[in-house]
């Protein structure tokens, strides 16, 4: 009996048969579509595929499956929505199963007094948001992947939403959680406003990328929902650096817009066309949320600071358009039209998000825009935008397209570009090569340089909590460690 047959037979003793997918076609159909998307468009099969997908329905089933896998050296990739972008869900060996908790998608409790909601890991973020909206609240968490992503995966990849500058990233929203460890032990981090009992254990799971635990339940903050009181404004600034300086001043003065975005001309021309820019101009826009008093004050300050930086105010229509169409990408990504475009043009499109202090971010942007078209001859498009800002710095979301020479080896060609960008970012003292997609099996190649002398702490976490190395091998922590 081969490993697949044995594993499936054993798992059927733990989980009802109808929740185990093991036929090749069904596995292919349930393959997370962001994984090796380019190669898939050409029909290249992955060198490795999962032994099966187990669609768990309860926390106890997760515990039973993990315990079995831990005892039998079966590797486990956990998933909920399946929208990961950094190959977190890529199977890299022949002894891996998918543990899919997408069916665990209930709202357990919404507590308006404490302003929190407790949900199962597989709840779709868009549905969760709609549910709390009906009650007059918002989760404040709106990543572009919201139509596809689930809360468990968003926590595991340390996600961020488009309104993060006001509400914070997922790390600011998560109050507590339940998770299952590789040996099947179920743990709970109780949701409390704050505690001073050693390091914050929530952070063991925020961004763990399934490398040592499976998040089953989360309690997150909710906020009053005042869409009618939202302030919006769009501006054209003379160049990208001027926009960065304006945003820095807004943040440094303590204002917290919800949406803070700054697009260079290339990004606008290629992907939006919403605003007509000349030469080096950049498009900057904001929204402010909260009660009317808060959003009015924030909006007035944004306007004053922007105008002081020589911006031209262009009203709200372009901002409204962005709000309405911002997640449209989820409708076409992985579609047959997308694949046909890949095949015919040979061009792969993607993004990479980096971050740095204010003193470094402008330099990183300029270096990247100047140097990468020189060193990457197959670059067909390159632009960028700022989308998440902080008191001490901001991110740049680089958008790129590459003409792939050899589709079967697309991942390696894409890595050449990613590595070249990482080289630039890591030249800067405050540059970080990953802002909110997670490390996955892509930027894991640079994780030691990213973390420097603190890398052994990450490696030790993996060894401590997943001593047999069954949880998502090669993700977040390089395999050899």
């Amino acid at each position, binding site marked *: 009996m081969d490993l697949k047959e044995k594993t499936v037979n054993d798992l059927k003793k733990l989980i009802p048969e109808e929740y185990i997918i093991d036929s090749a076609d069904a596995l292919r159909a349930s393959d997370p579509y962001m994984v090796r998307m380019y190669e898939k468009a050409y029909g290249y099969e992955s060198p490795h595929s999962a032994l099966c997908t187990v669609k768990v329905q309860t926390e106890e089933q997760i515990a039973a499956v993990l315990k079995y896998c831990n005892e039998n050296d079966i590797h486990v990739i956990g998933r909920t929505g399946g929208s990961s972008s950094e190959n977190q869900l890529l199977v890299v060996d022949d002894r891996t199963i998918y543990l899919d908790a997408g069916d665990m998608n209930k709202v357990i409790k919404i507590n308006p007094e404490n302003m929190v909601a407790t949900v199962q890991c597989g709840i779709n973020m868009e549905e969760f948001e709609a549910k709390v909206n009906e009650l007059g609240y918002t989760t404040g968490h709106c990543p572009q992947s919201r139509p596809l992503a689930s809360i468990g995966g968003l926590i595991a990849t340390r996600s961020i939403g488009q309104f993060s500058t006001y509400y914070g990233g997922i790390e600011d929203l998560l109050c507590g959680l339940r998770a299952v460890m590789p040996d099947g032990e179920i743990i709970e981090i109780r949701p409390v406003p704050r505690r001073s009992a050693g390091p914050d254990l929530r952070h063991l799971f925020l961004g763990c990328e399934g490398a040592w635990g499976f998040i089953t339940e989360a309690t997150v903050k909710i906020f009053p929902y005042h869409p009618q009181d939202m302030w919006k404004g769009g501006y054209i600034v003379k160049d990208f650096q001027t926009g960065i300086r304006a945003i820095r001043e807004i943040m440094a003065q303590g204002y917290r817009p919800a949406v803070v975005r700054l697009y260079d001309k290339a990004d606008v*021309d*290629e*992907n*939006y*066309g*919403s*605003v007509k820019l000349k030469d080096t101009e950049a498009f900057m826009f904001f929204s402010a949320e909260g009660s009317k008093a808060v959003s009015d004050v924030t909006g007035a300050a944004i306007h004053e600071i922007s105008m002081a930086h020589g911006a031209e105010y262009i009203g709200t*229509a*372009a901002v*409204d*358009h962005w709000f*309405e*169409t911002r997640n*449209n990408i989820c409708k076409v990504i992985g579609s047959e039209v997308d694949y*046909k*475009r890949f095949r*015919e*043009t*040979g*061009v792969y499109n993607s993004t990479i998000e980096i971050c740095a202090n204010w003193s470094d971010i402008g330099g990183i942007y300029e270096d990247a825009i100047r140097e990468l*078209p020189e060193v990457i*001859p*197959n*670059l*067909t*498009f*390159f632009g960028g935008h700022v989308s998440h800002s902080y008191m001490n710095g901001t991110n740049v979301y680089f958008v790129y*397209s590459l*003409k792939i020479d050899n589709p079967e080896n697309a991942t390696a060609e894409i890595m050449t570009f990613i590595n070249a960008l990482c080289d630039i970012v890591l030249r800067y003292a405050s540059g970080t090569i990953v802002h909110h997609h997670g490390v996955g099996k892509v930027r894991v190649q640079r994780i030691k340089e990213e973390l420097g002398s603190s890398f052994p702490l990450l490696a030790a976490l993996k060894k401590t909590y997943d001593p047999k190395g069954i949880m998502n091998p090669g993700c977040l922590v390089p395999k050899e460690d």
Partner: protein
Amino acid sequence: MKTVVVCFKITYDYDELSVNDWSGGDASGRPRTDFARRILGCFDEAALENGLLLKELLAETGEEINLTALTVNPGYSEHIIKRIAAVGYDRIITVSTEQDIDFCPESTARMIAEATGEAADGTIILTGAQCAPGNTGLVPYLLAEELKAGIVCDVTRFFMHKGKIMAEAETDTGYLAEPVREGNVYILNNTEKSFLRIPTLREKMKFKDFEPVRMSTNQKACDPGVSFRPAVTARQCVFPDEKALQKLLGSIRNGENMT
């Protein structure tokens, strides 16, 4: 030297329009497109790519050719023009008109005929099957009439056969092929290759200062003969979710009153 002229139109990415864009159009009844991305009409994009493929086939026969892209379009986009230049078009002609010609295929055809001029006799002309807004699908046929040219519709590809370049056309009974002839208009539809190739940044940089041949026209837009006015001044628009869509389709199937 042979001349291949590919006619194209720059339009808007209607898939990117929002609910408010569809509802918030002007009195003409058209949606608001101020914030929509400019793109090539999808059939015209296929025609442009097939123009390049035809050029490559002609080159195999040792034939020197001039590949020209031609647009009659007030919606000019520098970004798209430079892309077309960078992928291998020898010449791009833009015919500007301030007139609204979306529903005037006769005028559009006359303007194209005027721009192709006397060269039309020895020219191979490629067009897409149709393009929004307007979508009349008539321009290629009227153009052929203006030029007194032959016409081959539903062309899916060009290919080499026994040293001759053939056009393959889809018909109700299957695919037919015939040698490509000068003076004909070929309408590209349902093509094997439908996306225009994408130049690298380096290739694009060579065309940083590229300028198309700009022409103006004295042709007047014709009276389309009908008056396009919206039935209501404000369009009601919703994008239904899956559940609502199924309900809507069910109602249609059951013949229920949809008001």
